[in-house]
């Protein structure tokens, strides 16, 4: 089963990529994953599957990716370093490739204290940058951490995340550069609501010469309601939602707020398309996958290329 990463093909052919996110269920039912895949199919190039996001136990990212792959989709395996040591992580990297998964996104993961297992031991044997480096070496040099040779190298398009809105701001672009040095080939960013700050960050990224070295996909999360906007602004670490965005959501009548959220998302995507060095968008419609087709359509990003 020799397959290729659709995401990689779209990006390397110079097209504007669209990825979306699928959160696996808090249960063992494969149909939940498949039905989310069905909603997103034909509207996006690839689908990220989160890895026990916010430290909440869910169906494993690897298994959900395999389910999506079997449906003919191109999954992006999210892998956090919070729950597994380097033995388990490298083993899963090999397993993912063997299952035909062609994309991996390396993260450290939300701290376990935020989830439903706050008494868990946080592993953090290695960090996200060390994971990027390890996967890159597995793929390109066919060796694992420590130098042992693999009998066959994994085939993976390697991604990382960036948060242009966290502090210390000046260091954030340099951090992206370190991830690229470590081996990241694409970047998905934190949700963008503060376009000015994002543009400022992209300027720093370009100054470091990174815009030509890595594909950057801007993060988009459509807001469902003014309440959600306020909650996220206040409670989600590293989230930057300006007052005017919250006010705009508030100004819309309750029944219209979802559409307003979609409108904001579309406007943001249209703006991102004009920024030099932005190569695509990553739409994280949290438990609202149905919104993705409309957003893609209205952002003039459909149909998706055959890749």
């Amino acid at each position: 089963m020799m397959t290729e990463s659709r995401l990689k093909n779209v990006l390397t052919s110079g097209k504007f990529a669209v990825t979306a996110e699928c959160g696996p269920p808090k249960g063992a039912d494969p149909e939940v994953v498949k039905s989310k895949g069905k909603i997103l199919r034909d509207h996006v190039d690839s689908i990220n599957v989160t890895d026990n996001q916010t430290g909440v136990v869910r169906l494993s990212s690897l298994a959900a990716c395999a389910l999506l792959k079997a449906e003919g989709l191109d999954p992006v395996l999210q892998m956090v370093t919070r729950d597994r040591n380097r033995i388990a992580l490298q083993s899963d990297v090999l397993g993912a490739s063997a299952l035909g998964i062609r994309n991996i996104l390396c993260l450290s993961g939300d701290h376990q204290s935020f989830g439903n297992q706050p008494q868990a031991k946080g592993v953090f044997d290695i960090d996200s940058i060390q994971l990027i480096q390890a996967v890159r070496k597995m793929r390109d040099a066919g060796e694992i951490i420590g130098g042992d040779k693999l009998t066959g190298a994994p085939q993976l398009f390697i991604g990382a995340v960036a948060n242009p809105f966290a502090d210390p701001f000046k260091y954030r672009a340099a951090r992206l550069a370190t991830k690229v040095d470590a081996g990241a080939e694409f970047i998905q960013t934190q949700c963008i609501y503060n376009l000015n700050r994002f543009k400022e960050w992209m300027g720093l990224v370009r100054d470091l010469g990174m815009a030509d070295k890595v594909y950057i996909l801007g993060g988009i999360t459509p807001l469902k309601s003014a309440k959600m906007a306020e909650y996220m602004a206040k409670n989600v670490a590293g989230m930057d939602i300006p007052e005017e965005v919250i006010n705009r959501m508030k100004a819309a009548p309750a029944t219209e707020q979802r559409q307003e959220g979609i409108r904001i998302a579309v406007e943001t995507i249209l703006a991102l398309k004009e920024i030099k060095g932005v190569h695509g968008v990553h739409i994280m419609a949290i438990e609202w996958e149905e919104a993705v087709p409309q957003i893609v359509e209205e952002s003039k990003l459909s149909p998706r290329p055959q890749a």
Partner: protein
Amino acid sequence: MITAERKPIKEIKEMLAPYRKILVVGCGSCVAECAAGGEKEVGLLSSALRMDAKASGKEIEIREMTLDRQCVYEFIDQLTEVIDQYDVVLSLACGAGVQAVAEVFPRVHILPALNTTFLGETKEAGLWVENCRGCGDCKLGVFAAVCPVTRCAKGLFNGPCGGSKTDRCEVDPDVPCAWQLIVSRLEDTGRLDLLRKVHPPADWSKQQGKGPRKIKREDQRT
């Protein structure tokens, strides 16, 4: 120093239930400095235990003792003459002290009265903070003397994570983001370039690779 906190008295009482004659032994070193297991705390705990026993009609006998150090044989030896007169030793030492006493007296029942917590600094009166994990491979030199293993909630070597906002840790807003401290200290001292290097995975075998660690110095041995 090693810091510790007293266990809830309920838990101590449950452990002590089968015993009548109790030798309460404090330690005058680290746990005295952090007001958990010194002479004073031995007095307080013993007093509380006596009052509690009296109220519940239980007869107990307590002797209070505090050693300068409960982790060094020369001091532990002070217990030799009295220990046989007691049913149990309730130790207010750190985990190392409890085990050191147990090893010297293999037949004696010994119970911990403290929860040993961390290696830390007395930041101000009544405030102790953790800043060393004893990883066995100190990298403070490249991290501007701020330990990311200990002070970053995720122990990131190539931090900061995406959650730091206005220099606070996302896990606990009372705690400064260690990486914010590292970045600003390196910036202030003109060494920010140190962070462009990718730090390879840590060698945790120096911390826990082969079970308990040991330091052996021939020049110090007799």
